[in-house]
């Protein structure tokens, strides 16, 4: 009897979550699909975005994300490897680093926005630019990526480290040939999580990359990210709802494409490097 109740509750909770998300997605799709067309993707916005397309905004979004990733991937992987492989787990320094990262991962984005505005735009004199926005996003993404990558590496059995050491295999070789490939699903998951947070970001970007909806000419230009565009259309532009839904749909499709390709890439690398049980 208690089992039945429990089973029912589990199904119910899953059902509620599924329905909520289904409703959310279908709302965006239903409202936005009418707006979706080739010209919507390739035209400049007109009349504050009510008409025209979102081409410059897609480009800005990708540039901001790309800038952030160029910084985040090497720094994040490096720090995670340091934390997982080159430090004593129990040392004070490591534990405090970990605590700081966990706190940072949970800090509201507006705080990062203010920091980016003060530090990148102001102190480093980068102004409202894609560069400032990308760097601010990088700060937000780093803690997430570092902690998930570290967790992934820590989950790799220690047996292989000892086996490698006993064979006189260097840590570098072992990392590249065994540990990192084995941990790559976790690393990819962390990367996608942080990309998700970045693409959804508005608060941090309004302050740093600005909201100019023209085509950016370089990384020093201001650029409007998709999430900022959606926010602007729905809050500040009367009659911008349709375009907002269209942009939201494009954003969702973009995230799905990034997800799928990142997973495929990691799977490809994993298959090439690692030979798991088939």
């Amino acid at each position, binding site marked *: 009897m208690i089992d039945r109740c429990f089973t029912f509750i589990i199904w119910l909770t899953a059902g509620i979550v599924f329905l909520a998300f289904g409703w959310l997605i279908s709302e965006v799709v239903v409202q936005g699909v009418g707006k979706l067309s080739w010209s919507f993707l390739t035209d400049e916005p007109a009349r504050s975005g009510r008409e025209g397309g979102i081409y410059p905004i897609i480009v800005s979004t990708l540039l901001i994300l790309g800038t952030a990733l160029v910084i985040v991937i090497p720094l994040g992987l490096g720090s995670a490897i340091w934390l997982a492989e080159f430090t004593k787990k129990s040392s004070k320094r490591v534990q405090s680093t970990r605590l700081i990262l966990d706190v940072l991962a949970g800090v509201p984005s507006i705080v990062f926005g203010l920091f980016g505005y003060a530090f990148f735009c102001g102190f480093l004199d980068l102004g409202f630019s894609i560069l400032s926005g990308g760097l601010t996003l990088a700060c937000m993404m780093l803690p997430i990526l570092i902690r998930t990558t570290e967790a992934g590496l820590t989950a790799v059995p220690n047996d292989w480290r000892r086996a490698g050491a006993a064979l006189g295999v260097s840590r570098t070789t072992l990392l590249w040939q*065994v540990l990192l490939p084995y941990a790559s699903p976790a690393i990819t998951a962390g990367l996608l999580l942080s990309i998700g947070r970045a693409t959804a970001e508005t608060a941090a970007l309004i302050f740093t990359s600005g909201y100019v909806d023209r085509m950016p000419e370089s990384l020093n230009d201001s650029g409007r990210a998709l999430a900022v565009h959606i926010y602007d259309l729905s809050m500040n532009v009367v009659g911008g709802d349709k375009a907002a839904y269209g942009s939201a749909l494009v954003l969702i499709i973009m995230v799905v494409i990034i997800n799928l390709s990142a997973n495929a890439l990691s799977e490809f690398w994993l298959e090439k490097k690692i030979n798991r*049980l088939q």
Partner: protein
Amino acid sequence: MSKGLVTGNAYTLGSIEQGEPCCEAVSHFSIRDLAVSYQQETVLSNVSLEVYKGCITALIGPSGCGKSSFLSALNRLSDMVPGAKVSGDIIFEGENIFDTSVDVRTLRTKIGMIFQKPNPFPLSIRKNLELPLKEHGVRNKSEIESKIFDVLHSVGLWNEVKDRLHCSALSLSGGQQQRLCIARALILEPSVLLMDEPCSALDPISSGIVEEMIQRLAGRYTIIIVTHNLAQARRIANYAAFFWMTERVGKLIEFGQCRPLFESPQHSLTAAYVSGEKG
């Protein structure tokens, strides 16, 4: 294994044949006053013994008496353990392995190690063997191929895996994995094999196969094996070292040729342990 099966299972003691005593005792390792501590807590102290070339030396004694710590000091794998401190001298092939001039990675190519749990890398069988070779500068394709063939033959695995070298090493059975690990250690042409209870995670049949293989490797390699299986120690070892824990510190109680140690132990603790009264 077949010898053991005559008188009972692998864990019963009886009139079991033992390995040949080594004809000439040439020292390979000289261990002097070895002590190991973790986080200032001594787990092993005052161990001095000789390990003879080409012989099988068995380390026996109850759990927690420092046998594995002793073993991992010999290839300096203890360096990896945070807070581990090793003191004393280990002279290996005329050189103290704790000298600053000793390159640990080269040392470990001369001293192979097999662990309790088989730990092949999650790579193909071939790559498991290639990885250490390439790491130590062997790039020639045909040389690699012939070495892979040789070591897989040595561990009796060639016929079982020759058609699936590209398959995952993790798809092998436990016993096969352990033999692959031994092959992986052998491919670097070490002179010593350290084995930390290599059969204890295996089923009796696989255990028997691995044990037989260890006996075949004796002579070509100096083998130091930790085992909880006294019958196995008796069957295969030429020398035996008995460790015991006194006041929570592991000590070497008795060391000598295997048969005398089992049949006429000098120390009462040894006698009690090998007869099964204590331990």
